[in-house]
């Protein structure tokens, strides 16, 4: 699905890296640019792009591509 592509684009733009460094299983510890500031930026990017609102606890949990996709799938599912 194309959600993963958007997430990869966001991560590449946020961390200033090539999107081919990001795969379906990538987690925070795989990418040195994914530091604490980068993480907050990524969370804000997800909010702006997908129109979701994260609380502090969710922000601390969404530290991998699978976790992010799983969250988005639940949050963006049509009612």
């Amino acid at each position, binding site marked *: 699905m194309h959600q993963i592509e958007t997430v990869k*684009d*966001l991560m590449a*733009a*946020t961390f200033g890296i090539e999107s081919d460094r990001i795969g379906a299983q990538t987690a925070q510890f795989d990418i040195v640019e994914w530091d*604490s*500031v980068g993480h*907050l*930026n990524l969370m*804000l*990017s997800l909010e*702006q*792009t997908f129109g979701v609102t*994260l*609380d*502090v606890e969710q*922000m*601390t949990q969404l530290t991998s591509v699978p976790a992010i996709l799983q969250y988005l799938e639940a949050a963006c599912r049509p009612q």
Partner: protein
Amino acid sequence: MTPVAERFQKALTATSRADVLAALRPRRATALGPLEINRLVAHLRQLGEPPVAVKLVLLRTYTTDLLKTYWPLEGLLNGLDISVYEAPYGVIHEEGGAGTEDAKPDMACFFLRAEDLHPALRDPVSALSDEARATVVDEAVAQLDNILSSFRRASPLALGVVTLLPPMHGPELGQFDAMAGESSGDLRSQLKRRIAKNLREKHAAVLFDDLDELAAEVGRATLFDPRLWFSSRFPWSVAGAQALVRRLVRYATVLKYPRAKVIVLDADNTLWGGIVGEDGPDGIALGPEYPGSAFVAFQRRLLDFQQRGILLAMCSKNNPDDVAEVLRDHPHQLLRESHFAAMRVNWEPKIDNLKSLAKELNLGLDSFVCVDDSPHECFQVKQQLPQVTVVAAPQQPVEIPWTLDDIPSLEILSLTHEDRERTAMYVQERQRKQLATRSTDYGQYLGSLEMEMTVSLDDRRHLQRIVQLTQKTNQFNLTTRRYLETDIERMIEHPDWLVADFSLTDVFGDSGIVGVALVNGLRGTTAEVDTLLMSCRVIGRGAETAFLQTILDECAQRGVQRIRAQYLPTRMNGLVKDYWPRHEFAESDGWFHADLPHRAFSEASAIRVTVVRPTSGGSRAAARASVSSS
């Protein structure tokens, strides 16, 4: 498409930086997403308009890291390639230790909270006695003095911008706060006023930027993100961060690009709705009813820009009589003829009119901001005079009053008495020219002006204006040496230096301070004129001679026997190449010399001169008294 998305698409296809910027206006309430920012940055980088490098240092007691997403775009939109160095978190006070020394920044931003300046500001303050409040404010200002002194030692040339984090809550006493004589709001206003006053008086090139104004612009509820604040000490929301960065980048833009000095206004559908030539003076939209109400508000806003020292000029394709009638007789027209420094109301091409306005006002076209509702005229100016900032008047009348609110070059970094009076001075000059064309004899004309010159010596109160004149005077300037506040301050203090300035009044009004002389070597037998400059608008009335006469007399009185001086040619100062020979200075080895005392010049006879010496009882004044009595 939503309007924001539409503007974004337009920005991405614009072919110049100015057009990208224009597409994104109005900037307020436009928070861009990260992907949009990336695409805009990439687009701006490939437009082939190389940005000017600018270095920022951030000194902070709270986190600023998340701002980094927004510096590149805001910078590139304004032609700046911004590099940011963040001093270690919390280090604002250590001598040079913040690393600012190596960074050699153009600008240093201080992100502070009030409580960093005084621990009492962490606690409720409403119950503090007047005395305790005064002490808190004094001590907070002293603390800021310390911070700035160590900053200044490490970065002698950077512009400093001091900010205080706005309160995240409403005031201590709730809605009653403004009613209480002693309140948190009142103390904060006091603190801000004192900080600004202290910076004006003691810290050259350090500004206070009031972020409470940012809170008013963005709204407190939108400005902050509590999640980021309580988890990461970063206070700002995405929208708040973008507005903050935009605000700070304006200072960098003013530092690196020419300041706007003139707003050139079209008339029809810009100053009023409709076309005066067709609708007639009674038929244009201008007055209390919509859409005239929006045009009245725009005219009112233009008066604000005039308060900053920016001139208003008119350039309109119209019959001069039609426009004159509106300016003179329309009951709701706020801008009268006396508000315009110059006018071109005719059927000539706009380009020619702008060029001739530049000539009449003696200002470069790069200091022009041109407002016009016609896309055709705007396009033509952009094409043929790319140095002019072109602003399209919005098609929607309700947006007209905000037309100029997003233009960084209209911001100022200082404000002198002369800035406030500038328009009046240009209008007076126009009247003088009219008198001169009526007078048959030039001497008689000068006599009828009843000119009086006031020459002030070593006057600290004039420091800012003297610096401003050394920075921007190009034509009547013998040596074109640029000085900073700290330089002139040192000269005023130093017994070898004489810092003289003058103002000129005549029947039409007061010129303000328009000339400066800096003379070195007053304790020896030969003194040197380091700098002699004058604003062009007072030339040709004998002021250039009367001022020199006064300087020579003062030097002679202090025991100087010989004066030497230079003319250092530049591209701009050919006007004064004969200045020294014309005043009987003899040339040898590239220097001009004159022996003192010098005979009185007859050209200066139409001007009555008063010399004002410093009156403060400091040691400098005492030293001078002993010199003049010996």
